[in-house]
């Protein structure tokens, strides 16, 4: 996995983590409009990063489209990645 792919993947992980937090909070406080706005803006950002990543490196989920051949299987798999950025 090259430097560029790692940087983009880590950005997806960061924005994805914001969504984990807003999701759990909103589950209990569904009427918190400020938190919901935060969630929606990061959801938008997440979708943009994901489409950028998937167009270049293949699907993160099986429901996504792929170039030929099916790129979902391409390594490294999540547990094989060295996340250090040189």
């Amino acid at each position, binding site marked *: 996995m090259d430097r560029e792919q790692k940087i983009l*993947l*880590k950005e*997806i*992980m960061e924005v*994805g*983590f914001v969504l*984990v*937090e807003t*999701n*759990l*909070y909103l*589950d*209990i*406080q*569904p009427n918190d409009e400020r938190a919901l706005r935060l969630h929606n803006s990061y959801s938008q950002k997440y979708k943009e990063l994901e489409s950028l990543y998937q167009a270049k490196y293949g*699907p*993160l*989920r*099986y*429901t996504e489209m792929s170039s030929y051949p099916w790129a*979902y299987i391409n390594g490294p*798999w*999540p*547990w094989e*990645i060295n*996340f*250090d950025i040189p």
Partner: protein
Amino acid sequence: MWIYEKRLQYPVRVDTTNPTLAAMIIEQFGGADGELSAGIRYLTQRWTMPTNQTKALLTDIGTEELAHWEIIGTLVWKLVKDAPVDEIKGTPFEAHYVNHGKSPFPHSAAGEAWTAAYIQSKGDPIADLHEDMAAEQKARATYEWLINISDDPGVKDTLRFLREREIVHFQRFGEALMILQDELNSKKFF
């Protein structure tokens, strides 16, 4: 329904091969207060939750626990993947190795296989949410003991992240419990 997302929740870093540490961290892979117990517990309790808030919370925290289980498996794997057999012999990982090779397996650090007896689903939301809060605190304590015995900066960093998540989940379960109790108390039937 679940869909796998082909990424970890947190970038797991391991600096040095260490089979002994792997054997200890496996506590959170298949021990009583580990991530597998947490995930199965919360996802099982969903059917009898009375409110949409608690149904959602158990679904989403339960799902996050499976992502943590994957993080722990990755820690274990990265700690042993490059270890030659000579580096495994004589360590506490040796007993694991003779049964499972280098594959993670859901058992405790002491080698007891994971069992559903570690969890409970009472069909009673107040009992279940209290169990969940206790589970989060027990997992937090386990992470603290694991951090104490780890000298690998990468491993410590990931364990600190996971410890923090236990605190956040405890907080959310506590809020859910308070809201539910208020709601149950305000419903008077004559």
